């Protein structure tokens, strides 16, 4: 059995941190759930020898996050499942809100900590479910790729 990649290990660590942070540092839980998703994407890219696709050229105007979101869209298209992109985008946008309080005056009335501390266990379950759905879709995409490769090799 192959060793898990550093990305998969980091994704698992982030998910664990998120669960622990939910109670006292809920905004960090949101951020860590997103970073768990991000490393799952990196792990997928590494497994498929596509990790270079996520590297930003020095002179490129596109950000690393934008590049990765494009890549997520490509995977979603490949398996024809919009929910992978939807769940990733949801976590990305929430992490932006929790980190930078983007457009705070328009969206939140209080600090991110105050806001996310209003989340119930059920709310956090909904967030975790998005991460779970991402895992399922990535596994599906990986299986598809392996199947296609096997057919080509035969």
């Amino acid at each position: 059995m192959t060793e898990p990649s550093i990305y998969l290990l980091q994704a698992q660590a982030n998910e664990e941190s998120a669960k622990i942070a939910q109670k006292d540092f809920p905004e960090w839980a949101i951020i860590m759930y997103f970073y768990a998703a991000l490393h799952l994407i990196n792990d997928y890219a590494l497994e498929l020898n596509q990790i270079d696709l996520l590297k930003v050229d020095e002179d490129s105007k596109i950000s690393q996050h934008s590049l990765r979101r494009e890549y997520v869209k490509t995977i979603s298209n490949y398996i024809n499942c919009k929910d992978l992109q939807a769940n990733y985008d949801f976590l990305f946008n929430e992490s932006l809100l929790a980190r930078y309080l983007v457009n705070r005056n328009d969206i939140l009335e209080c600090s991110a900590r105050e806001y996310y501390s209003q989340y119930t266990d059920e709310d956090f379950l909904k967030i975790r479910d998005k991460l779970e759905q991402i895992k399922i879709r990535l596994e599906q995409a990986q299986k598809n790729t392996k199947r296609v490769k096997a057919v080509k090799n035969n």
Partner: protein
Amino acid sequence: MVPLHLEKLKSNTLFAVPNALKNFFGFIVEKIRPELAEVRKLIEKLEALPNVQAARGIRNKNGDSRKIIFEILATVNPSERIDLLTEATDFAIETEWKIDALTKSRNWHLEVQVVRKFREDKKNQIIIFNNDRTKYLSPASSS
């Protein structure tokens, strides 16, 4: 000589001709730019979601014009916000894929945000509503 009686030609609706022209040009523009019709449909769908008072799309005239941010005006608690954003994001991605297919491009990026109030309009933006209130903000307009 036959009297024309122009007053009888007047419509009861004020500004009927400008409205008709606007509708006609709107129709033509949406024929040429099919994404606009999809964007309006999305706004309608967003406005029909629970607790939503209004929705609008914001697109920059310059730069990355394939990015559209949809502001959803709603007063919701954190729990309701998760559900609203989940549904809205699903709708947005569905429309994004549709527009990608229509324009044969994969560069569209549609994003949704739940807001307590619409952000102040900025220069060089196109504010898209689900009707003919769409505004094209020129650099000369105030921000």
